[in-house]
């Protein structure tokens, strides 16, 4: 529940970028004969609204309404006191404050005589809102999560640049792990300070303090001792876009060098466009691959794990986490990856 810097940076995300995204959504809406699209957003489901407006939910929840024409309208439960703050971070919308989201949106759409209404991830909508919408709208709303997903199958330049900025912050953050770190608190504090000073919007750090005993990443007490091999994951948000980096550290210099080589090889592999990545993972002496996980921003979560068995889905980019062993020592690496998940032959998805 922690937010860092939240500011509008036109050079990173412009009104023109957002208008193009809304136009792409409207094109898909037209092909589905929808005359209104509703997106719900809250602290953990901010992505649809952030992608279309630039605004990331901080407190409470909201509904975004996009019709075939006119400015989109953002309905917020925040009070009027927050008006200038929201407007400064959400320049493309009309902003309406209401304690009753369902009623306000239904009244708005009924006034505009919109009857073909789609709701993104309708089933996940809180019942307190869904029940009001289904009762008050002129016709029953339909599920329209696929409409948004289709509108963003191809990433725009702003999105890729923001992802690279978030990724760069995460990478710079985990570089700050002190070489003499003894405890989890030393590591988490240093990484968090670096990414926040770098201007991140949010960050979460997880640690596997002793990879040989347990290679799972979690939050640990600050006074937990670090082992000879440990891993740190920084999940960092910039302007609504989340990236992650995980690095494995070793006290032993030889092992540390091998881990660096492995990380570099994975970085090159992740930068390769997905079709070319269908080959096996890079071969490195003494390295075994045990599993991978590919996350992508396909729905209202900032990142969502992709089911590798689902065919036909396209994803603009994602975050790839790989795990394995090197000379018998467990390692984890997370990198930004371009394109869809790979068909990895010699490691199974998690």
């Amino acid at each position, binding site marked *: *529940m922690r937010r*860092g810097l939240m500011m509008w940076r036109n050079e990173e995300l412009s009104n023109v970028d957002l208008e193009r995204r809304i136009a792409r959504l409207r094109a898909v809406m037209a092909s589905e004969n929808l005359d209104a699209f509703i997106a719900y957003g809250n602290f953990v489901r901010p992505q649809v609204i952030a992608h279309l407006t630039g605004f990331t939910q901080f407190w409470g929840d909201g509904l975004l309404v996009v019709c075939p024409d006119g400015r989109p309208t953002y309905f917020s439960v925040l*009070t009027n006191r927050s008006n200038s703050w929201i407007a400064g971070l959400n320049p493309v919308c009309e902003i309406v404050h209401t304690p009753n989201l369902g009623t306000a949106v239904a009244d708005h759409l009924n006034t505009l005589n919109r009857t073909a209404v789609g709701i993104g991830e309708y*089933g*996940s909508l809180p019942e307190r809102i869904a029940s009001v919408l289904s009762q008050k709208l002129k016709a029953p709303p339909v599920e329209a999560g696929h409409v948004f997903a289709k509108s963003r199958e191809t990433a725009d330049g702003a999105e890729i640049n923001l992802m690279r900025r978030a990724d760069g912050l995460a990478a710079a953050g985990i570089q700050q792990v002190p070489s003499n770190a003894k405890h989890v608190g030393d590591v988490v504090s240093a990484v*968090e300070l670096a990414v926040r000073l770098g201007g991140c919007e949010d960050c979460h750090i997880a640690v596997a303090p002793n990879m040989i005993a347990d290679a799972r990443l*979690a939050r640990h007490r600050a006074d937990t001792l670090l082992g000879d091999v440990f891993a740190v994951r920084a999940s960092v948000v910039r302007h609504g876009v989340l990236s992650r980096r995980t690095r494995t550290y070793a006290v032993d210099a030889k092992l540390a060098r091998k881990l660096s080589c492995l990380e570099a090889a994975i970085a090159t592999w992740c930068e390769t466009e997905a079709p070319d990545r269908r080959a096996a993972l890079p071969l490195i002496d003494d390295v075994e691959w045990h599993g991978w996980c590919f996350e992508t921003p396909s729905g209202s979560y900032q990142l969502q794990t992709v089911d590798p068995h689902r065919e036909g889905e396209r994803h603009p980019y994602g975050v790839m986490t790989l795990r394995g062993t090197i000379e018998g020592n467990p390692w984890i690496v997370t990198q930004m990856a371009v394109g869809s998940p790979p068909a990895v032959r010699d490691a199974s998805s998690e």
Partner: protein
Amino acid sequence: MIIKARSEALRNACGIAGYDALIVFGNAWQGDYLRYASGFGIVEGEGLALVRPDRPVSLFLDQPFEFERAQVECPGIDVTLVTDLLEGGIAELEGAATIGVAPMSLAPHHLWRRRAGKDPVDATPLFDRLLMAKLPEELALIRTCARLADEGYEVFRHAARIGRADYEVVAEVEAFFRAKGADDNFMLIGSGGTEVRGMAPPSGRILKSGDLVTTELTPAIDGYYVQICRTLVMGEPSGIQRTAFGIFSEALERGIAAVRPGSTASDVAIAQNEVFRGRGLGDFVTTQYTRVRGHGLGLFTDSKPPIVESSMTTIEPNMALIVHPNTYHPDVGYIVLGDALIVGTPGNEILTKTARELFANQGSGG
């Protein structure tokens, strides 16, 4: 263990209410119900816990990294990774006639569409009573966290210097809390003069001489949040700033004095608001300028009860609250001042010890 004590209290309450099962929802914003039931502090995605009288708590999570983390952090809990929370959760409720749900505000539409049989019952009020009146184990953590909140404000005071950006100040405070083992911190900041109407996440504004710099810090230890609100001036406070601050100081004292077993949240809000009304500032205690005059503390940063004039929730022993008459003052801008306390008999235990003064910060530079 705290999870055992909470689990026992929850099962007893469910038994009295006649529930066959309780479905508990949570996410990173509102994770208090889920954490009370399962012990898991969720960070990403959404979670669902099933509480049944004769079985261990089952926790369902929809994010793989959260699933991994829960296995490490909640070793006694049965954790399952699912792509669809309700599919996992509801499948296990076969035969349960009366099902409670908490908090109802997070319950998704699918729950009603997929669940055959009787509609679930809103168990939020039952759960809220458990969340408000703290167990001894919970109070111990709250006291520990209050000390951290005071230390955090000390870091904030020294970090807030002329010429620094607000997010740099926040970064320093957050790094301090992480080093000390706080698993979370809810923090807002405001800076400037009469143009400032509230607090928000940092915006990149550079602190200037004469600014009022407001913050509410809310670190959490093992999920339990304690809040402190203070205001400082960049440079020497002016006479008008001191006079305005005096009103908030008096309002806080009156508010705390009104906190006693048997009084209501409304009484506490009125006691604070009357101080402003008595000075012709009644408009500034309305919803146009302020939200609440305090609230509960615990596993959520903004727990029940809200301290507002319309809340008739009775104050009970062992509740943890913050009283804060934060609002806009037309002469100087937004001022905050608030202290956390535990409701006691005969007197309240004030948790946060930082002096209730309008701090001055003369330093500058990064």
